[in-house]
């Protein structure tokens, strides 16, 4: 059975095709006064009428498979058509490599369609490890057009976990980050690899070099939020280690020296301070340099950081104010060092 591309589809209406002569199409049961009624083309209406006929009769035949191809070309978002197609593919034991080509062509034109990616995952799962490199390569093609495609990243992560192919993944993340250091999806993938890859030894083993990687990225572009969140993430659930790693406080200080109002640096400093970090005199001085309001000098350093953030980051002023109000309580609990 041929699987025609949409532009090669014969113009013959299904009702005129001899192989469909025995089937009575079933019109959509929209009622006498439908709402959100779509002005379907004749081709769409007829294709769906025949689809309903085979679907409701549960006819898992080659012609039904062909019909799903046509229906999907007309609307790739119809999950019922896709699900029925999977039942047919299973029943007919169709060669699924061909299916990958079909999905591949569609995915390139509908990169944000849930059904296509779900179907692709289903096919790849059936093909098993034979599909690994092809699937990784396929997502790379998608990323060359849209490096942040959410579905493609989910698919890639699924491939790695279900089928393998971890070996070059960290290098791939690095390549994407070299192209665009602001690509948060690539940072997220890096975190995924570092924490999940069976060939790297896990977060504990990788933390040291990853901190260095993040620090380098921060120093290059301090306004880039991604490496700041990544750095914080490397110490997720281990905040005391974050506080104790001298490189963290140091990168904040380095950034604040050159870019005194860097919100991300101040956000990190705040995180350090509320978790018991003992600030150096230099850090304190650099915060003080930002305290234009002399009324602040009597408050603790953590409060002063919040006050600075209220001023330099006005869109989040309420948030910083709320953070500051929490600090006061901590201060009364004796956690906060007097400034």
């Amino acid at each position: 059975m041929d699987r025609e591309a949409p532009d090669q589809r014969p113009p013959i209406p299904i009702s005129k095709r001899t192989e469909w002569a025995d089937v009575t199409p079933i019109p959509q049961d929209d009622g006498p006064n439908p709402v959100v009624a779509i002005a379907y083309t004749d081709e769409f209406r007829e294709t769906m009428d025949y689809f309903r006929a085979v679907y409701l009769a549960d006819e898992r035949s080659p012609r039904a498979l062909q019909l799903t191809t046509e229906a999907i070309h007309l609307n790739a978002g119809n999950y019922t058509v896709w699900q029925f197609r999977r039942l047919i593919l299973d029943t007919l034991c169709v060669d699924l490599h061909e299916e990958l080509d079909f999905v591949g062509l569609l995915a390139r034109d509908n990169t944000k369609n849930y059904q296509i990616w779900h179907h692709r995952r289903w096919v790849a799962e059936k093909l098993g490890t034979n599909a690994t490199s092809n699937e990784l390569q396929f997502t790379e093609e998608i990323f060359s057009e849209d490096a942040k495609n959410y579905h493609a990243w989910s698919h890639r992560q699924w491939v790695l976990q279900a089928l393998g192919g971890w070996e070059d993944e960290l290098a791939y993340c690095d390549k994407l980050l070299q192209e665009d250091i602001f690509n948060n999806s690539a940072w997220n993938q890096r975190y995924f690899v570092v924490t999940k890859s069976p060939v790297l030894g896990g977060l504990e083993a990788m933390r040291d070099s990853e901190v260095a990687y993040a620090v380098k990225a921060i120093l290059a572009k301090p306004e880039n939020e991604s490496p700041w969140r990544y750095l914080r993430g490397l110490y997720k659930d281990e905040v005391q280690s974050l506080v104790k790693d001298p490189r963290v406080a140091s990168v904040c200080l380095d950034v604040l020296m050159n870019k005194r109002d860097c919100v991300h640096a101040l956000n990190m400093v705040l995180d350090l301070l509320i978790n018991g970090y003992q600030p150096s005199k230099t850090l304190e001085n650099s915060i003080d340099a930002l305290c234009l309001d002399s009324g602040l000098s009597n408050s603790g350093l953590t409060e002063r950081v919040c006050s600075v953030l209220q001023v330099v980051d006005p869109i989040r002023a309420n948030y910083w104010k709320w953070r500051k109000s929490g600090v006061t309580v901590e201060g009364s609990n004796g956690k906060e060092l007097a400034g």
Partner: protein
Amino acid sequence: MATEMERGTKTQEDQWMVQSQVFQIYDLFRRIPPNSQFAILELQRDKHIEYLTKGLKQLSRSFTVLDANRPWLCYWILHSIALLRDSVDDKLENDCIDFLSRCQDSKGGYGGGPDQMPHLATTYAAVNSLITLGGHRSLSSINRRKLYEFFMRMKDRSGGFRMHEGGEVDVRACYTAISTASVLNILDDELIQNVGDYILSCQTYEGGIAGEPGSEAHGGYTFCGLAAMILINEVNRLDLPALTNWVVFRQGVECGFQGRTNKLVDGCYSFWQGGVAALIQRLHLTVNEQMGQSNILECECSTDSDYDSTNSVISEGEQCYEGTPSHVNETCQLQEEGQPNTSHPADGNNVGYNFIKGHVYMRPLFDNIALQHYILLCSQEEGGFRDKPGKTRDYYHTCYCLSGLSVCQYSCTKDVESPPLPGDVLGPYSNLVERVHPLYNVVLDRYYEAHEFFTRS
């Protein structure tokens, strides 16, 4: 902008482009006289209603790609009309109920159109549409017993739900199932089992929630995950301080929200992210507890004296709190109910109802006035709303821009009974839209009617 002179990465170039378009709009706005500014900020109510009503009846062939999402089209349009404080006429209302009944599967749940398989997302959309229409005929058209069976069939071993038979498992599916079950009063322990584990596994190192474990933190999924965790009484399992820090950073220089770190602003996140901020605002006791800030209320009261006049509604609330300590107990009780309490399944169905009761002590965590600027000046069109300047309007963005506008306008009110002050509504006060229930995103009055109906029946 000076930055346009240097070569940036793809992310930077895209960002600068959008930024310059948005700033151009704000510049123009600033340069016109104040009385004209007021006119430009006006919500084009009549034009929006016209656009919405037209679509509810008939859509062009370009909507064929949404042929498996027709209950969504109903919800986006009906909810938008309700937000605009209007309603459809009796005939159209009956036609909507009839049509949605044709999408209801005999074995439970709603599909994307007649004779399509039932799907969790279109079920959510259909049920929210019927609640928005309201009335006995509409609400009684939902087969809740069969719907519960459908939900149970969609439960996955992972704890999550799958969207449809043979469909994908993700946080959206969890939310649409839990939200619908909650609003229809059919949520029970069996349905809730392990859902919290699944959602928890989707919270990322950034603080937000992803669609699947390992994926990137995302506004839509963060709303879905947070709302579902609240509805199943397990919200304290999430790292709320991290989630809060992540979400407040999603509002950018364009004044609107982005969906993910270093992505472009989009009007629809006015609701997804703004809604998350609104939910956190009501969770502040849990957040404070996680941050080790148990005495925060006291503290906020003592330090709030420097609030300017626009915040008077908050000050009022706090005075009220100071004068009547019983409110604290009320809030604390609510907090108690916020703890996992799976031994009382009947209570589970009241979580959504109790969540919006009581006073809000926390100021909005985002800039609600700035966001209204983005929605009204950058997203609003002559009928309908769009993602950003340069894009065209659609019903999805119309629904979520208006929902976001509602979240903004009511974000400073001290309780659900109080109307916003004029200062909280950007533009003429007639811009005020209806208040939504932030967990289900249906207009609050319609929610109350449905809550009463499904508690009785």
